[in-house]
């Protein structure tokens, strides 16, 4: 599959995993609940993991040789950048739209 499509999809998948983990983190009681901070950490952890995972998948899906490989490798950084931007942008939008939910703690 084209890197310009695959890598943003992987970015979205990473975002969904971050959202899932954020939802699993329980609301804590007490005067200083730490749960919002934990969710924020999860979001940024996946933000930094995203390029690494995306790059690894990009390598794994690369054709073995020839012009196809060159094209694939050339599009990898751009797809990767798109994936990161998509992760950040969609994450920001979701966080603001669902500001009273657990993912609202991301921003």
């Amino acid at each position: 599959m084209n890197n310009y499509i695959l890598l943003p999809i992987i970015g979205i998948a990473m975002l969904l995993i971050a959202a899932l983990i954020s939802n699993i983190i329980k609301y804590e009681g007490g005067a200083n609940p730490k749960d919002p901070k934990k969710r924020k950490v999860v979001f940024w952890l996946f933000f930094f993991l995203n390029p690494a995972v995306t790059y690894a998948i990009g390598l794994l899906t690369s054709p073995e040789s020839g012009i196809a490989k060159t094209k694939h490798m050339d599009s990898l950084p751009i797809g990767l950048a798109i994936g990161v931007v998509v992760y950040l942008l969609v994450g920001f939008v979701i966080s603001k739209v669902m500001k009273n939910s657990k993912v609202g703690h991301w921003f």
Partner: protein
Amino acid sequence: MRCLESFVHLCAIGMFDNQEINVLTLDTDATNGNLERVRKLVGLYSDIKSGTTKDGGTPNHNTFFSAKLNLYGFYTDYNSTSRSTYRNISKLTEGASSKQNKMLSDLFLDNNSVQEFNLAHGYRAQTHLGSHLMYHGIIEAARNLAAGGDVSNAERDLDEFIQKISKAGEEARVFIFGSVFGGTGASSIPVIPTALSDAMKVRSQGKSPLDVTKVKFGSTLLTEYFSFKKPDQAEMSTKANSVIADSSFFPLNSQAALQFYQGDPTVQNAYKRLYHVGWPLESKSMDKNSPNKTITGGATQKNPCHFVELVCACAAFDFFNADNLKAEGKAEYLFRTGEFENGAFNFKASDLVGNQKNIDERLIDKLGAFLSLAHITLTKNEAGFGNKGFAGLRKQLEQNNIDSYSTVTDKELDQLDEYMRLFGYNFDSSNNFQSGWIYQVRDSLQPGNFIFANAAFSKSIKELKGLDVGKLFEDENYHWEKGGVFSDTYQTFVKSLTKLSLDDSAHLVNHTKEKFIAHLHDGIMASQSNR
């Protein structure tokens, strides 16, 4: 006073929605520990309801603390030497008729004991003396008020209370809490309707008499349910202590009192409803903390609450909400019973309030919701361990971008924490568990049960830490859904809390603190509806 404590908690859970209730505490012992405790409780309740001014707030709808309470306090003053005993108050040796007065007094009241004991700690189960003196105390206050001049705060409070009854006229409903076996309550129940009526006549100098037959009076006929150490001869050696109530006579006192209430036409005509409340099991000992001395009253008399006092509060609920109270005629005598098996009671909500119009479900919902709130604040948010529970809840809302309650002050949130500790529990600075009202009520029922599961009343820190705030009922049908594999019901509550939008007008709330309380109420109700 402990019946009133239960009544205030019923108001706090929201059973007296959108009502304004005037409370008059009547005691002979202004320093009594139970009186002080209930006055503190009502004061705290009013502070919680108040906005910027200390006016006790306004009645609200479908929320916690929804009734407005106005507290008045009247006590007969027996502290000075000239008023410390019946003999001193009556001035038996003075006046032209002193001989006749003395003979009449000796006929009804024992010369060496009843006429001589110190009245500062109440009437000490001498009901005949108590009725006479309580009536006298109220009429004396009315005379003072009519004369003007030096009027005490207690007399002013009595006056305001009587004016409220007078203003309400035929709509007025007055419910009197008191036992029939002890001193002050037992003495007061027979004379209060007449005393208030006569006081009104004296106060208004006959111009606007309160027609006692128009006002609807109700009361409990509460028979013995607690005991204390039998006083020994050494304790009774002084004249001031020549009479000390002996709880071994309470069953006999109760029996005699019930015969009186069954047959006395004055009582039958003055009251519209009389609720029989009794405890057929062994009376609970009240002097575990002072095994060597009989506590006759004073600041040290702070006894734990009992289930029958909750029953009495529910009787008041029934009386205030009854839509078929007879306007005239003799009193109705009412009672309910509960399931009793294997030496223990297993009470249902309908045993307390009946089941007309699903009122038992309402009690379950409201009491369950407030107990959940208690565990949310005391256990989950650690107010029971000296931390700030409601501040934690507000922070939870702020972290979820709901910051409309930032103007509620820390002091106001502390008051809410304090109320929940009085309702639920508290660990003191030495980590000793202190039972609040609902724990005390539950303890008094043991080994019996009432609606809730044993886990809801844990006293162990470890168990409390693992408590699920939406699973407090014995019947699992009332448990909240936990909303996910890795979730618990506290998560359901916070999710409900953060999702809902508060309808101020539906709750009749006016200031931010009331809105905050209504928001928490709705959050719990939404969690309950997920069950």
